[in-house]
């Protein structure tokens, strides 16, 4: 089991879970446009989602576009 904090909320994932698994756990398609992921504050490029495992206690931020600016 891997306990992680995703967008400020605690989640439990299977052992060896990857960034791609985290994205899928939010009902997002891994190829969805306009999404970016930070793992413990560092950007994980989309091409590395499937190969990047999330450690127990990791902080993951999954971000998308909203209306904003002025």
């Amino acid at each position, binding site marked *: 089991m891997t306990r992680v904090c995703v967008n400020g909320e605690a989640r439990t994932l299977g052992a060896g879970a990857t960034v791609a698994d985290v994205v899928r756990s939010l009902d997002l398609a891994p190829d969805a446009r306009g999404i970016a992921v930070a793992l413990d504050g560092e950007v994980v490029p989309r091409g590395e989602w499937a190969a990047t495992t999330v450690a127990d206690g990791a902080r993951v931020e999954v971000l998308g576009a*909203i209306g*904003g*600016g*002025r």
Partner: protein
Amino acid sequence: MSHDPLVIAEREFSSRLILGSGGFANHELLRDACAAARAELCTVALRRIGTGGDRSDPLARSILDVLRDAGVEVLPNTAGCFTARDAVRTAHLAREAFATDWIKLEVIGDDRTLLPDAVELVAAAETLVGDGFRVLPYTTDDPTLARRLEDLGCVAVMPLGSPIGSGMGICNPYNISLIVEHAGVPVVLDAGVGTASDAALAMELGCDAVLCASAISRAHDPAAMAAAIRAGVDGGRLARAAGRIPRRRYAEASTPMAGLPTL
């Protein structure tokens, strides 16, 4: 003035009105405002998705689709960042999310005035330019700071007219004119526009473009206000090029006195 493009970082735009996507109540209003503004660039922000935070925002899932369908390019911003560190990280995330190295850089000093934090802004701009970004910084109306940002390699400077969303227009036209006078990169009047005349004044002062959201998105009729502000931008641009008459303290007759009859 039939071909009078705005050029930023070697990219040409025919529209001198950049739209901000903040504050629109729904997709349709944003879409209609894009069309009425004839916008080619529109800012978007990055926020958490999928855990509830975005679900109160009706634009969350498909704002990119709305903009794409409107033929408008995305200009990501770092809205909500209070430190250079957060702004730099947000910019890198935006580059990943939107596949663009253009970033509207905002580093805010406090959440009551939303005025830029100059020290953090300069630090973030320097880092991001070094990281290969095309940086468009939201800045105060300080001519020295604007010049410093340009010297760092920013591709435009975006001084505020007055605080974000205040609608107070251009509080210090003198400073804006000084920024324009010394700038070697485009000057985009950012923040404070309340109505069409504010946008016209920005352009008359020599700004190259205007960025506007609240004045449009929070207007009673957003599309109508978008059209009005666009007309203000175009009118101000034409007036700037036409060369206005100097201000005088007293009248100057336009009709000659010679030949005046004695009655």
